[in-house]
């Protein structure tokens, strides 16, 4: 085709920490590269729909403990190794267990119920689980589940850390890279096994993609504006509007997962009082957040899961901004406004401590705006900010010092949501409720044992309504964790279920 070829430069704010595939594939940054260099067994699109990719088809037994995957034939890794049953098993094994003593981690979201995998023949793999694992197939489309050549997997960690020594089967190859600087990918000419869902299976159109690290957001955008680069990742939302007017493509794909919001720790006063939680729910002007911090590309949260997740339902009425109701609820709860405009009860001020999420650049601004909004109804908001490391260390769900945990989390299957919320079965106990809320426990159990989507969806709907009404979860906005500003010449990219842009199908006009 005459439009084939061309090179693009993608400006990114970080190139992550390590290239050991297991340790890096979930990174917001490295996922871009892995998405082009490797393939997955299953493709999950922006709406959460799983479709065949290198697994052309699959079957599962009734209790979802045994899965059979039928592989596409003729697929090879870039080092020449065939992508066959043995290769898939090697990948499944290392996803599950890693090689921790070497510093190769397991893949966090890979089902812990994994038992073993067996090759039925060169193109058929049978996977066994110790317990029912409905989410296995969608997990194969998750960004961590990238297929790596068995030769690469066998390498020691320090070799795996060298990106150029790792072979995938994707439409692009690593031509050169430099730590903390750039990664240049070139097209693999014999590629012929793209996901049918994107409508193209042959070699990619663009000759090369260069991911270049530019830490300053304003410089990334200005570079694209001045024609020095084609895509700027994670632009500041404030600039998007004018960029759109200037003719640049602005993409704000949403991933599948929770909305951005707070999981409230019900063990910490005053949030042990449902009225206070409900006041919080009503005291936040979500539209103003979108108008001020974001742009119309961001959507109002209508539940605590993103609206594109299958099973998400619209509970916008529970999330309406109603300061009068909030004040009334607080009055009822005994929090009365003092002379300084801040409510107090028994000598303590009505305070909300929030920890800005370091994984979301706009988190602080939203916090500040909410602080203003809550300030009007007599709520004092204290904002704390930690770096990624300290945040991970100090800010945990249901920790006594963390009344509100800011969630930014994707997931593949809404069915897993309910089990995270309580502490049964190693759940994360988001609201600090433990096993104390009978209704929540009941919903959780019924969702887990639901055999089909038809049975599960109404339960999910009920769960969403309950959690929001109780003020367990305070949504802020639907989350856009990845923002792309793209030169108008570049077209045809595809965003998957975790909002990564794939330029496999993209073309650049001259």
């Amino acid at each position, binding site marked *: 085709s005459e439009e084939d070829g061309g090179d693009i430069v993608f400006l990114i704010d970080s190139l992550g920490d390590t290239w050991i595939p297991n340790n890096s594939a*979930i990174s917001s940054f490295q996922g871009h590269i892995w998405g082009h260099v490797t393939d997955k067994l299953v493709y999950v699109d922006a709406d959460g729909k799983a479709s065949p990719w290198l697994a052309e088809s699959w079957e599962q037994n009734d209790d979802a403990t045994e899965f059979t995957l039928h592989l596409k034939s003729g697929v090879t890794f870039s080092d020449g190794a065939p992508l066959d049953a043995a290769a898939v098993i090697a990948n499944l094994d290392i996803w599950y267990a890693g090689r921790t003593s070497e510093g190769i981690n397991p893949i966090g979201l890979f089902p812990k119920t994994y038992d073993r995998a067996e090759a039925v023949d060169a193109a058929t793999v049978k996977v066994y689980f110790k317990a029912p694992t409905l989410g296995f197939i969608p997990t194969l489309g998750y960004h961590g589940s990238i297929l790596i050549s068995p030769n690469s997997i066998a390498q020691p960690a320090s070799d795996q850390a060298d990106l150029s020594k790792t072979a995938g089967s994707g439409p692009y190859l690593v031509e050169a890279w430099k*730590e903390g600087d750039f990664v240049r990918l070139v097209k693999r000419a014999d590629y012929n096994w793209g996901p049918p869902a994107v409508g193209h299976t042959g070699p990619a159109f663009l000759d090369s993609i260069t991911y270049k*690290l530019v*830490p300053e957001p304003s*410089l990334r955008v200005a*570079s694209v504006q001045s024609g020095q680069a084609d895509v700027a990742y994670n632009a500041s939302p404030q600039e998007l509007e004018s960029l759109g007017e200037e003719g640049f493509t602005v993409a704000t794909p949403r991933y599948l997962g929770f909305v951005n919001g707070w999981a409230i720790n019900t063990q910490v006063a005053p949030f042990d009082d449902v009225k206070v939680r409900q006041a919080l729910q009503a005291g936040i002007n979500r539209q103003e957040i979108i108008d001020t911090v974001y742009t119309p590309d961001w959507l109002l949260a209508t539940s605590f899961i993103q609206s594109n997740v299958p099973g998400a339902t619209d509970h916008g009425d529970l999330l309406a901004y109603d300061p009068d109701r909030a004040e009334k609820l607080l009055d009822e709860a005994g929090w009365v406004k003092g002379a300084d405009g801040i409510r107090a009860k028994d000598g303590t001020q009505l305070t909300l401590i929030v920890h800005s999420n370091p994984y979301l650049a706009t988190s602080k601004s939203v916090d500040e705006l909410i602080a203003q909004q809550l300030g009007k109804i007599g709520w004092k908001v204290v904002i704390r900010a930690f770096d990624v490391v300290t945040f*991970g260390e100090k800010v945990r769900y249901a920790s006594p010092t963390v009344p509100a945990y800011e*969630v930014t989390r*994707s997931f593949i299957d809404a069915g897993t949501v309910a089990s995270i919320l309580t502490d049964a079965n190693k759940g994360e106990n988001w609201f600090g409720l433990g096993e104390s809320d009978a209704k929540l426990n009941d919903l959780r159990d019924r969702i887990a044992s639901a055999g089909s989507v038809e049975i599960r969806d109404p339960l999910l709907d009920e769960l969403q309504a309950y959690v929001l009404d109780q003020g367990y979860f305070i949504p802020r906005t639907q989350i856009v964790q990845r923002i792309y500003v793209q030169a108008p010449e570049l077209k045809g990219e595809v965003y998957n279920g975790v909002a990564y842009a794939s330029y496999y199908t993209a073309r650049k006009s001259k």
Partner: protein
Amino acid sequence: MRNAYLVYAAKRIVQAVVVILLTYVFTFIVVSILPGDPVTNVLRNPQNGFSEEEIQAIIAAQGLDRPIPVQLWDSLSGFVTGDLGLSMRSGRPVATMIAEVLPSTLILASMTLAFSLIIAGLIGYGSQALPRKYGQGIVRGIPSLFLSVPNFVIGLLLIHIFGFQLGLFRVIDPNSFWATFFAAVTLATPISAQIAEVLVANLDNESRQEYAAVARARGLRQVRLFFLHLLKPSSLPVVTVIALMVGEVLGNALITETVFGRTGIGSLVQRSVSTQDLPVLQAIVSLAAVVFVVVNLIADLVYPLLDPRVKLVGAVRRPTTADEGSANIPSRVVTE
């Protein structure tokens, strides 16, 4: 004299080695009290979905829970034998990672030093040769101004003006000549200012000396007076100031490299600090200390050879940095 110099040199070298080793231990202790580490950092990414017990198990499996002294001993003996270990963050050999970024920083640093010297020299010349009231006043104000502007503001301004508006360089190609040029200019502003402050103070001091008047009475013109008489004694103390600036260049490179998107020692530090990659930080700080100590060692060893006034009795009294107040710079670097 010869003998005294050798004794002095030997003393200084031993001192330098001690300082390097102490710096290593010091850094290790400071870095060890940093909260967390890159391993848990990766593991704790919420998208990863590990539980706390899983995280602890992985940490234990990698031996990261050993006592600090044991880790220090391992690390120090590695350092002495030239083995810098593996990065905790990326898993790659630290030596490779440093070797990758070192050339870029070296180029930037040498350009910076060259610019700093040129700028400082121009300011120094201007401070003596320009018309007193206006010319000199303005030139003498430059170092203060340079020292008052946040470095990253200068960098961003230069990028926007020369990179985007004038299109002199591509931001995504920070190793091109002009991008390096402007990064060096950014880095050179505070450095040149500090050198210039010392130089101007020394020049003033020297030009007030009787010998300057006597030389003028001998019919020397300003240019010759500056180059023949004032420059050498004024810039001798600058030699040691420049040596001290080496640390400053490395430190400031942290910001400049980040702003310009250059990969170099500075940006590697920035990444390693934000993930607390102990082996890399440790190696870089030690490397910086080695560079600093060696450069200063050379300066100290060369100084007595350059300055005929210095007699080596006891230690050489060194001039101080601009920081320490140019008023303190002894006009005569003589030891009794």
